[in-house]
C-alpha cells in the first residue's frame, strides 16, 4: 500500500466529483454500464413505464394521507364542518377521511389523486401485461420475469382492494360484507377465517386497522421488492425489440439512456403526474360524504366497485342459485364458491403457465429477443382475445343492472345472455381473431409479392385495365417477410417407440394451432412473382406513355 497516490488527475469539475465518489464508494462502473445503454423505443413499451410512475405517485400521495388518516373503528359523533352529517355516529376512520376531505387544504386533491392513480396503476399494469403477451415477450429467456409480472398484477389488485376498504363508508363496508360472505362459503375453514379476519363477528372493530397495515406496509413493500426484481431482470435480459430492418436477435437498436432515453422517460413521469392531476382536479371520485358511514342496513343501488374488482363481482352475479347442499350437517355453497374461485383460478393459472404451455406445444426452446407482430402469431393472439372476452363478459355482468336500465331490457334477460356469452364468447373470440390474423397475414403476403396498390388504373395496349402496383422498398419488404411461423409438429414417439398420451395431446394442439398457418414469403417466391410482373409491368409503362 505504498503508492496510493492517484495517477488519474481529473481536469474538469465533473471529473473531480466522479473521482471523489468513485475512490470512496465506487460507481463509475455503474455509469459505464448504464450511461449509454441502449433501450429500444416504441409506444407500446410505455405501459410498463406508466405503471411504474403511477406507483411512485401512489407512494407520494399515500404517504401524505397517512399523516392525517386514523384507522380506528372507535365510535364517535361527527362535529366537523360538513353540515349534513353533524352529530351522526360514525367510526373515527370515517371521520378522519371526512376531515382530510373538508378541513385539510389539498386533502381532497390528494385523496382523489391517490384513488385515480390506483385505477391508472392497475389499468397500466394490465395493458402492459397484454402488450407482453400479444408480442410474445414472455418467451425464453423472460419466462421468470413474466411470472414476477403476474405476481405484481395480483399485488396491484390486493393494494387496491385493501385501500378501498379503509374509509369505512357505506361502500367500503358493503364491499367487506361481500368478501365476508364469500369467505364464509369456503368449506371447513371459512367461518374461522372470517372470525379471525374480523376479530369476531362482522364488522367488528379490528378490520380497518388490520387492512391498514396491509395497505401501507406489507403490500407496497412486496410491490417494491417485485418491481426491483422485475426491472433488474429487464436490464439483465436487455429489452426486446420489434422486428424490422437492422434489428436482429443478436442486437438491440434504440436510443442511449443518456441523454435521450432518460430525458424521454423522465419527462414522461411528469406527464403522467400532470395527467393524473388534471383528472383529480376535475373528476370527483368516491365522494364518501354522500354515502355516509357504514351501516349494515341501507344500501345504495347502482354503486359500482372499483373497475378491477368488477369481474369477480360479475362472476358472482352470473352464477345461478344452485349448488348449495348439506351433507352430514355441513353446508357446501357452490353457488358462491364456484364463481368466486373458478374463473379467477382459471385465468391466473393459464396466465402463470402460458410461457411453458406455448413452449410445450411448439417445442421451441430458443431465445427470442425479437417480438412477434400479433398477427404473425394467430393462435396466441386468438387465445389472448379469448381471455379478454372471458374477462369482459364477467366485467359487463357486474353492471348488468345498469345495462338493463340503459337499454330498457329486462335484467333477467341480460343475465341469461351474459351466461351464454360466458361460455360462447371466448370461443367466438378465438375463432374470429385467428381468422382476422390469418387474413392480415395473407394481405401482407400479397403486398410483399405484388407491391402496394396505388389506386392508379391504366389500360394495357390490348384493352385490359389493370391497377398499377408499386413495388416495396427493401426496408418495407423486409418488415413484411421477416417473421417466423411455427408449423404443425405431429406427435413424436419417445425413445421406446411409444407415443404417450400427453404427446398425442400436444400433437393435436399443435395441429389445432398451426394447421392454417400462413408462411412468410420466401426469396424464390418473390423472384417468381417479379418475373411474372416484368411481363405485365413493361407493357404497362408503354401503355402509359402511349396514353399521353
Amino acid at each position: 500500500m505504498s503508492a496510493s497516490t492517484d495517477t488519474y488527475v481529473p481536469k474538469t469539475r465533473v471529473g473531480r466529483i466522479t473521482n471523489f465518489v468513485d475512490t470512496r464508494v465506487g460507481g463509475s462502473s455503474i455509469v459505464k454500464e448504464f450511461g449509454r445503454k441502449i433501450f429500444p423505443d416504441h409506444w407500446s413499451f410505455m405501459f410498463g413505464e406508466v405503471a411504474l410512475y403511477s406507483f411512485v405517485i401512489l407512494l407520494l400521495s399515500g404517504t401524505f394521507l397517512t399523516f392525517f388518516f386514523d384507522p380506528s373503528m372507535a365510535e364517535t359523533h361527527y362535529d366537523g364542518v360538513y353540515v349534513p352529517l353533524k352529530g351522526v355516529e360514525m367510526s373515527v376512520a370515517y371521520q378522519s377521511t371526512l376531515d382530510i376531505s373538508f378541513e385539510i387544504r389539498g386533502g381532497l386533491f390528494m385523496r382523489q389523486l391517490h384513488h385515480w392513480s390506483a385505477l391508472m396503476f392497475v389499468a397500466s399494469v394490465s395493458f402492459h401485461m397484454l402488450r407482453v403477451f400479444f408480442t410474445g415477450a414472455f418467451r425464453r429467456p423472460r419466462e421468470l420475469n413474466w411470472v414476477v409480472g403476474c405476481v405484481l398484477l395480483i399485488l396491484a389488485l390486493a393494494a387496491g382492494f385493501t385501500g378501498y376498504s379503509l374509509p369505512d363508508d357505506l361502500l367500503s363496508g358493503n364491499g367487506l360484507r361481500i368478501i365476508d360472505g364469500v369467505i364464509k362459503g369456503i368449506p371447513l375453514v371459512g367461518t374461522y377465517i372470517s372470525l379471525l379476519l374480523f376479530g369476531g363477528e362482522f364488522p367488528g372493530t379490528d378490520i380497518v386497522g388490520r387492512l391498514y397495515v396491509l395497505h401501507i406496509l406489507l403490500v407496497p413493500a412486496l410491490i417494491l421488492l417485485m418491481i426491483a426484481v422485475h426491472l433488474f431482470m429487464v436490464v439483465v435480459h436487455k429489452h426486446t425489440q420489434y422486428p424490422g430492418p437492422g434489428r436482429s436477435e443478436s442486437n438491440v437498436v434504440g436510443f442511449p439512456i443518456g441523454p435521450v432515453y432518460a430525458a424521454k422517460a423522465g419527462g414522461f413521469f411528469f406527464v403522467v403526474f400532470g395527467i393524473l392531476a388534471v383528472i383529480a382536479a376535475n373528476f370527483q371520485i368516491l365522494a364518501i360524504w354522500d354515502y355516509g358511514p357504514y351501516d349494515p342496513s341501507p344500501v345504495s343501488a347502482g354503486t359500482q366497485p372499483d373497475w378491477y374488482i368488477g369481474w369477480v363481482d360479475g362472476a358472482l352475479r352470473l352464477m345461478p342459485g344452485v349448488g348449495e347442499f348439506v351433507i352430514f350437517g355441513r353446508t357446501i355453497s357452490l353457488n358462491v364458491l364456484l364463481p368466486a374461485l373458478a374463473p379467477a383460478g382459471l385465468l391466473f393459472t393459464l396466465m402463470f403457465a402460458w410461457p411453458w404451455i406455448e413452449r410445450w406445444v411448439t417445442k421451441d426452446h430458443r431465445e427470442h429477443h425479437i417480438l412477434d407482430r400479433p398477427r404473425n402469431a394467430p393462435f396466441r393472439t386468438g387465445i389472448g382475445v379469448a381471455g379478454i372476452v372471458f374477462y369482459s363478459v364477467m366485467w359487463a355482468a357486474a353492471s348488468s343492472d345498469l345495462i338493463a336500465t340503459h337499454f330498457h331490457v329486462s335484467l333477467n334477460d341480460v343475465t341469461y345472455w351474459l351466461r351464454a356469452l360466458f361460455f360462447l364468447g371466448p370461443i367466438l373470440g378465438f375463432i374470429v381473431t385467428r381468422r382476422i390474423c390469418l387474413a392480415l397475414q395473407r394481405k401482407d403476403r400479397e403486398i410483399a409479392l405484388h407491391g402496394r396498390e396505388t389506386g392508379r388504373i391504366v389500360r394495357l395496349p390490348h384493352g385490359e385495365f389493370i391497377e398499377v402496383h408499386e413495388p416495396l422498398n427493401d426496408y418495407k419488404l423486409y418488415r413484411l417477410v421477416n417473421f417466423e411461423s411455427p408449423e404443425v409438429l405431429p406427435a413424436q414417439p419417445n425413445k421406446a417407440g411409444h407415443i404417450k398420451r400427453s404427446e398425442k395431446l400436444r400433437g393435436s394442439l399443435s395441429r389445432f394451432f398451426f394447421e392454417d398457418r400462413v408462411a412468410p414469403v420466401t426469396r424464390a417466391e418473390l423472384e417468381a412473382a417479379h418475373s411474372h410482373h416484368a411481363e405485365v409491368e413493361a407493357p404497362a409503362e408503354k401503355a402509359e406513355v402511349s396514353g399521353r
Partner: protein
Amino acid sequence: MGDHSHGSPSTSGTVATAGQSDVEKFQDPGLPPHRPRRADKDPRAEKRAERQVAILFVISIIGTVLFFVGYFGIRLDDTIATLRFQNFTLGMGTAFAMLGIGVGIVHWAKTLMPDHEIVEERHEVRTEEDRRDAEQIIGQVLDESGISRRPLIRNTLIGAGVLAILPAIGIFRDLSKDMNPEVLRHTMWDAGVRLTRDPSGTPIKASDVTIGSAFHVIPEGLNEAEHKLEEKAKAVVLLMRLNPDELNVSPGREDWNYNGIVAYSKICTHVGCPVALYEQHTHHLLCPCHQSTFDLTQECKVIFGPAAHALPQLPISVDDEGYLVATSDFHEPVGPSYWERG
C-alpha cells in the same frame, strides 16, 4: 457498439446475422437512413424549438404559483362549492407544474437531442462455462456437508424446519378471541322483543302497517346495544303487509304472520348485502348487489339470481298494547351460508 444509421441500405453498416446462410430468407437491408429533423437542418427551427421548451418550463412555474394562490387564497368555508373550487385550483396548478416540465423535457429530447438510433450487441445471459463451474461447486458443497450421505441428519432437519414454521402461523390464533361459530345462529330477536323503526328505534303498531307498505326494522334496544353494528348486521328485518290470501303459508308457519304482516331477514342469503328493494305490485324483494330476487308470496323463496335459499322469516305477533313483537328468534341462521350452518 456503433452508429450505423446513415447511408443507403447497401452501405449502411448493420448486416443481419440471423438467416444469412439461409438462401430462402431475405437479406436484412440494415437500418433505414436517418432522416434529419427540421431543427437539424434549419438553425431558425432549432432556435424556435429551444424557445418552445423554455416556454413550457415557464408554464410549469406559473402552475406552481397557481397552486399557492389556491392554497392560501381560497378560504374553506362549509360549502362544497368552495371545496371544489380549491380542489380545482390546486389540481390544475399541480397539473401545469408537472405537464410544463414533462412536455418540455420530452419536446427537448425529441427536437434537440440526437435522434440517431444506436446498435448494441446482445450477450448471452451467462456462459456455459460458468454453469458447469457452478454445478461443480454446488456438488462439492453438498458433498462436503455430507447431507446426501446422511439421510438421518437431513430428514430430522427437514422435520424440525417444517415444525418450526408452525408457531409463526399458530401465533395468529388470537386475532379473534371468540371463535365459536354458534354466535352466527343467534340474533337479538327473542319472544316479546318489539319491532322498531330503523334507525330511530320507535316501536311499530300493527295498525301503522297498511297493505302495500314496507318498513325497515331493527329490534328494540339495538341502538343501546353494546355491539351495535355486529347485532345490526344480523338482526335487520323487512316488514311488509300483504293481503292474507296472497301469502302461501307452509305448515308450521301459520302463526308467524299477523293479519298478512310478515317480517323477513334483510340480509341476503347470497353473500350478505342488505336486500333493499321491494317491488310492491309483484311482491318481489330484490338484492341490489347481485340481483337475487325473492318472492314474498312464497315465503321469500329465491326466484332469480345467485342466492340459493330463502330469506329466513321472523315469527311475529302483537303485544297487549298493539305493538308488533317477535315471538322467537329466527329459526335458522340469517345471511350467507357457512360450513357449520347445516
